[in-house]
């Protein structure tokens, strides 16, 4: 299903849009050309050994090229207020529209939160400076595709010292035609925010295909929590690339929780671009039936005394498969960096398959780095211990699985712990154990 589209098509693509600023058109055009010129990734290529690239091609290019997102009108002040749980929410009332709402408090703090498409016009200076800086056509064919054709997403900007106590919830439509989205987050020095990026696409007749890009920029001493939840319908295929770049003394906690979808391919990474920067990543994947998860994480230490830690847990049932590859790169000029990586896989029955591949590129001696992986079924002695207390077999399995992921959940922000536990429990209730 090779897609060949000529240069003319790219120009046509532009011709339908009379509103976009020139700089954006240029980026889109470059990326569109790159997308068409880049071959499909070779299966022997890094990151492509475990998922077929064809499945991430969109079957709806024509429709995508001839449709623009609906520009939101005046949203704040209309409709539902933001619930007490969140400082702001973004959601899709339908396939084509992205709406955002935020509290008065956030407006007073000069925080900007809006549809990304709207922001390219209303906040042109900021958006044009950052959009595509971390993820673009140099990242790969599907990243080029996203940059060329993105048609939805969110823009969040926190000025220096702005602190948002409650999380911001982003509902992401996935599947369907209009699921090429970007999230651009700029967090000023000393600013703090928690983002919940919730992919929860509904079931569709034809398999949904979504392509998401997340770019996060964290200023000096900023504190960011980014939570990516993937609970899409059974037939969704998603491709998500996420990069955060954080400065001196900044910290980011990134959490990836995935229970949904048919195929989920995620490439997530943090660039530690300042002395003493800290990144922690947590992953919880729970797959059953024939679900496939392909996660790559990257920690790139560019400056001294930066720290990273990854704890990635996978539970697989039925014929579900998972691959985890984790890259740690530590530059030569750095000193006293610390990097840890742990990947644990619980395989509930024969027929599941998991891969775990650490990738270490450590160019200096002045470093502390450890990595470890485990893979195996539930310990029969553990089950027996629980059963000897009167707990049924199924309940014992549930308790052991909950326990397996619980230490990771306990590291999450308080308000998210119950959400994550709920997702795991729902999955456990639904799965035949």
């Amino acid at each position: 299903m090779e897609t060949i589209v000529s240069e003319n098509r790219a120009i046509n693509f532009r011709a339908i849009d009379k509103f976009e600023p020139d700089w954006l058109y240029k980026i889109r055009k470059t990326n569109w050309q790159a997308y068409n010129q880049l071959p499909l990734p070779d299966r022997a290529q890094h990151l492509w050994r475990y998922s077929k690239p064809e499945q991430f091609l969109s079957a709806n290019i024509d429709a995508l090229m001839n449709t623009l997102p609906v520009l939101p009108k005046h949203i704040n002040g209309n409709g539902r207020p933001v619930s007490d749980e969140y400082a702001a929410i973004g959601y899709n009332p339908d396939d084509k529209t992205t709406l955002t709402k935020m509290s008065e408090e956030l407006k007073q703090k000069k925080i900007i939160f809006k549809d990304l498409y709207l922001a390219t016009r209303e906040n042109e200076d900021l958006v044009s400076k950052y959009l595509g800086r971390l993820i673009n056509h140099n990242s790969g064919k599907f990243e080029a595709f996203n940059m060329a054709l993105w048609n939805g997403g969110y823009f969040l900007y926190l000025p220096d010292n702005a602190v948002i106590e409650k999380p911001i919830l982003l509902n992401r439509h996935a599947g369907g035609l209009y699921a090429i989205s970007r999230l651009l987050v700029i967090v000023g020095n000393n600013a703090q925010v928690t983002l919940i990026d919730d992919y929860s696409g509904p079931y569709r007749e034809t398999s949904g295909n979504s392509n998401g890009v997340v770019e996060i920029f964290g200023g000096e001493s900023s504190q960011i929590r980014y939570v990516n939840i993937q609970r899409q319908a059974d037939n969704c295929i998603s491709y998500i690339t996420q990069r955060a770049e954080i400065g001196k003394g900044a910290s980011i906690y990134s959490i990836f929780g995935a229970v949904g979808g048919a195929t989920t391919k995620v490439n997530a990474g943090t660039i530690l671009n300042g002395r003493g920067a800290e990144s922690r990543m947590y992953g919880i994947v729970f797959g059953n039936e024939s679900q496939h998860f392909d996660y790559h994480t990257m920690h790139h230490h560019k400056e001294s005394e930066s720290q990273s830690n990854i704890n990635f847990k996978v539970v697989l049932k039925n014929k579900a498969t998972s691959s985890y590859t984790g890259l740690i790169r530590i530059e030569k000029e750095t000193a006293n960096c610390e990097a840890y990586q742990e990947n644990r896989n619980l395989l509930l029955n024969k027929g599941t398959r998991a891969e775990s591949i650490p990738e270490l590129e450590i160019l200096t001696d002045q470093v502390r780095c450890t990595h470890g992986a485990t893979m195996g079924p539930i310990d029969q002695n553990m089950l027996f211990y629980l059963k000897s207390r009167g707990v049924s077999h199924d309940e014992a399995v549930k308790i052991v699985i909950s326990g397996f992921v619980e230490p990771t959940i306990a590291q999450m922000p308080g308000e998210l712990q119950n959400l994550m536990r709920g997702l795991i429990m729902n999955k456990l209730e639904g799965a035949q154990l």
Partner: protein
Amino acid sequence: MSDNNIVFAMHDIHVEVEGKEVVKGLSLEIKRGEKHAIMGPNGSGKSSLVNALAGHPNYVITKGEAYINGKNLLEMDATARARSGLFLAFQYPMAIPGVTVANFLRSAVKAKHNGDDSALKDFRKELMDKFQLLEIDKTFATRYLNDGFSGGEKKRIEILQMAMLKPLVALLDETDSGLDIDALRIVSNGINASAPSDGGVLLVTHYQRILNYVKPDYVHVMMHGRLVRSGGSELAFQLEEKGYDWIENEVFQIAEV
């Protein structure tokens, strides 16, 4: 099994582990309110016996019968055995990371009452009472079960579970090993306080010292997969004095004759 006074009985029990017979025909009856001790050297088959009775899949009962409260134990899986009132205090309790002591016990108490939530009405208070009984710090309620616990702490938590689950028949597998003298006293108090008046206790041990606190009505000596001698609590003192060789020699000599 018409004798209602017998709470636990086994007849001619044989146990295999990985195809090797480790218990070779063992019979024992426990009447209500009785405490029995099985003593024996390492490798005599004591732990295999109690694990097999509790239903561990690696310990296969190849022959014999066992009854708890008149019910056929060997027709039940491990879960059903526990729900019938059987309890095994493990020699080496498993750690279950991510599951707190309190949540684990809540699941167990609920399971024992066939999923009835009303069984949990006074759970919190009862748990705290039992923590006090076993002199366990309250913070253990929210720690992950046996995860990073010392040997002595694990043994206290085992008896805490016995106290919470109130079994009819408790099999205690070397609960005294790894305990210092103070902990031994505390754990023994816990066992005595939790031993049901209408049930039974079967205590497996190497050493006589726990029997100073948990006083057995009967002491049995196990060697090479069989009970070779039974008696009152005085037998434990004789063993302590003369060692297992004494019995080994006597049994051996009888066999020679």
